[in-house]
């Protein structure tokens, strides 16, 4: 535990447990099959829980998994058994809110797949080989959006201000609740 906090994987699955985008940072799951088995078991275990309002948490195969659902998307962040749970929750929240900003509040599987490049970039900006890069959703979304394509691309200049507006709105919401 004396080492740097680390994330073992980040998963974004759909409502049937299929992959939308996943990223593994640990060699605990060396093959694609072992990854799929992990996803399947985790999905089955968490399916019946209510993780739509607040992020939920579960001990799973000697790991800590925090997760959150919205529409037909399931977000998961996995860390070691001795990891600080709240720290993992912060990563999850950062990922979740950044995706919400990038997809302009319509967070569902179809939007996610249509903007899959943004989701990949988002994952790339949150964690680098297990080490947390950034947890602030507006910073993450900002970094991804700046790198986004030209004017015709999904997230253009005006959407950044829109994204920031959503961030502000989000902030007020958290302050009020």
């Amino acid at each position, binding site marked *: *535990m*004396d*080492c*740097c*906090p680390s994330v073992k994987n980040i998963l974004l699955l759909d409502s049937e447990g299929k*992959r939308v*985008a*996943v990223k593994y940072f640990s060699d605990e799951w060396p093959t*694609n099959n072992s*990854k*799929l088995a992990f996803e399947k078991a985790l999905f089955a275990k968490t399916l019946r*829980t*209510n993780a739509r309002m*607040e*992020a*939920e*948490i*579960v*001990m799973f195969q000697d790991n800590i998994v*925090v997760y959150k659902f919205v529409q037909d998307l399931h977000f998961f962040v996995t860390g070691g058994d001795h990891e*600080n*749970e*709240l*720290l993992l*929750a*912060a990563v999850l929240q950062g990922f979740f809110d950044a995706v919400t900003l990038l997809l302009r509040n319509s967070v569902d*599987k*179809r939007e996610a*797949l*249509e903007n*899959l*490049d943004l989701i*990949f*970039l988002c994952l*790339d900006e949150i964690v*680098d*080989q297990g*080490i*947390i*890069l*950034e*947890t602030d959703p507006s910073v993450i979304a900002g*970094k991804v959006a*700046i*790198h*986004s*394509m*030209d004017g*015709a*691309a999904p997230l253009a200049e005006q959407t950044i201000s829109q994204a920031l507006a959503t961030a502000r709105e989000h902030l007020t919401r958290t302050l009020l609740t």
Partner: protein
Amino acid sequence: MAQPLVKKDDDRDDEAEYSPFLGIEKGAVLQEARVFNDPQLDPRRCSQVITKLLYLLNQGETFTKIEATEVFFAVTKLFQSRDIGLRRMVYLMIKELSPSADEVIIVTSSLMKDMTSKTDMYRANAIRVLCRITDGTLLTQIERYLKQAIVDKNPVVASAALVSGIHLLQTTPEIVKRWSNEVQEAVQSRAALVQFHALALLHQIRQNDRLAVSKLVTSLTRGTVRSPLAQCLLIRYTTQVIREAATTQTGDRPFYDFLESCLRHKAEMVIFEAARAITELNGVTNRELTPAITVLQLFLSSSKPVLRFAAVRTLNKVAMTHPMAVTNCNIDMESLISDQNRSIATLAITTLLKTGNESSVDRLMKQITNFMSDIADEFKIVVVEAIRSLCLKFPLKYRSLMNFLSNILREEGGFEYKKAIVDSIVILIRDIPDAKENGLLHLCEFIEDCEFTYLSTQILHFLGTEGPKTSDPSKYIRYIYNRVHLENATVRAAAVSTLAKFGAMVDALKPRVFVLLRRCLYDGDDEVRDRATLYLNTVGSDGEVIETDKDVKDFLFGSLDIPLANIETSLKNYEPAEQPFDINSVPKEVKTQPLAEKKAPGKMPAGLGAPPSGPPSTVDAYEKLLSSIPEFSDFGKLFKSAAPVELTEAETEYAVNVVKHIFDKHVVFQYNCTNTIPEQLLENVTVIVDASEAEEFAELASKPLRSLPYDSPGQTFVAFEKPEGVPAVGKFSNMLRFIVKEVDPTTGDVEDDGVEDEYQLEDLEVVAADYVMKVGVSNFRNAWESIGPDFERVDEYGLGPRESLAEAVSAVISLLGMQPCEGTEVVANNSRSHTCLLSGVFIGNVKVLVRLQFGIDGPKEVAMKLAVRSEDDNVSDMIHEIVASG
């Protein structure tokens, strides 16, 4: 050939499985990737193709070596485009492809150009990509840029360089270590995450230098740390410093104030990290715990599941060592039993079971009963285990706990769960005599309707051992015989064996058991019939009721003292012949694994890796081991085996520790030897023991170790005779003697000629405590009263100046080698007096109880009143002698 990324014309509403990647196919996408080679690049199109490629990889598709190389070269062309978004996707793609060394060269110059670009985003990403794919030689070329990047004013660039540094430290530490000045500067950065990454890297660079880490922590705990993440990191490093300092410093714990102040931080993440760190401090006191417990208690009623989980998990751990400290949270904890999140509910339950006292058991059981129906099996197992330990703690409450276990045994459940319950009931029956009859009946009822063959046979076996010893064995017969009618062959065979055991042990039941066994002679299964015939002949002798003789009892109840692996090989080697198979020909010694398969080069278990496969360590195993050696087989019952004592310093050529085995008239020293030199093979290893300072002992026999290869532990034994029943003490000096042969570690060839050599070991003592076995009693007062004051001896002792009361108490406990009862080995902080209760069994099976009363006065002078009760006059005196001479 190319499909548009988004099929706008599809009717999306009707299509449940809409996906822009529907029908995507690797071959087609690889074809599409040809657009990367177009002279006029379309950035948008290229981005889409990269996304598709990434999608394929993400779904678990793999590219062949040729495909990957082709894609890689095509992607490198895209560096020509100035489109920022496309460049970003190119970076991602290169990282995913993880190119080989000769391919890396192709992109190096492009990436190096980006690394020195004016665009921050290019710099940050190029650093991360290049450091991911590069090797040591290239690193020296870009080192200058990385150092600059670490102190770059743009936080994204600085973080990218620092995080890359953390990864590179694993492969090329010597280069990264040169950056410490820059990293040091970055620790002072105003950007929150830069500080976090810099701190992590700096600590890793210096982690082997305790003084430097301590300095780092000291300076940072005084200054300001900006991000919660960095603060968490600092807490971790601080606890590390505390742990290492604790051995040298006394008095107030350094840095505790810092941890305590973190409990008031504004970020919950930091508060929790600090609280957890405090609860995990070595030998944490109640005063130190209190503030941490208080914040965790607040978290228990949070609306966030993550927070509740974190708090209850930590409190659960605290409850194992400091149950009293957690009792304050019991009310909040009880409300968590109905928590939506079953992990939280289970942790709450088990915490309550740990902290509960005798009076709260019944209420708690009622709450758990409601809760059990709606949790998963794996949680139920945790609860069952917690209830088992609770029952062992409060044996008087066995009735309600046993009822609970039998109730849940009747409910639906999987194998693992049922097994946990059955195991628990078996343990309770063994440890709490009053619970036996009740528990056995519950098990009988269970096998009446049990779908698991394994559990049925286990229970039948257990019933056969315990059932005949009860007051009314006949009531179990019906349950057992029912099995013969209703179950599969495996269970039927087990039931026949159990019936035979009842017949052998209970003479009154013999005629009836024989009638039942005879019926089994017509069973459809061979094994069942064979067993019935066998038992009728061994136990029965033509239906006459006679006393079962000892051989038969040994046969029925004795355990097989031959390793199963050995009997298996012997049976395989046996060829059907005139000569019947002789079980005595099976070797009893446990074979050590051959060297070849054990040792893969360069695969030393690091740190906490696999425990060394050494000799068995439990008393049971020791007993088996010793009785398998002919020289020691007539020593009688093993009284006690002490914990191993090291006779060599750590990291010497030969590692030797010794286990003392005490018998009534003998003492056996078991020397566990390990050869740590790959180039040597030791043969004929013995320990020459000089017992001139142990007058009452006479050397009897020794058993040399024939061969001791590298890193494969072996044992050699020396046995001594001593006067019977007397706790003889003495000092022994040891010398390891052996023949050493050279080994070529690469081929494993051994040279023929050996040289005799000796190796001095440390001395070994047999002390009075070796003759006392740690045996606890559940209720000390009852045991004390029942032994009575006939052989009570009371005396007072002055123990002289001591560091603390706790130190004096633990010194006396270890001197006597007895089991502290009712948690009295723990001395409350700052107390001036303490009572400690000990129990044990003295050699010759004499029960001994000790009551120690300690007092301490101003200049740390400790006085002690020692009261001993035992079943034997001499033993009581002996205990006093131990203390007087200690």
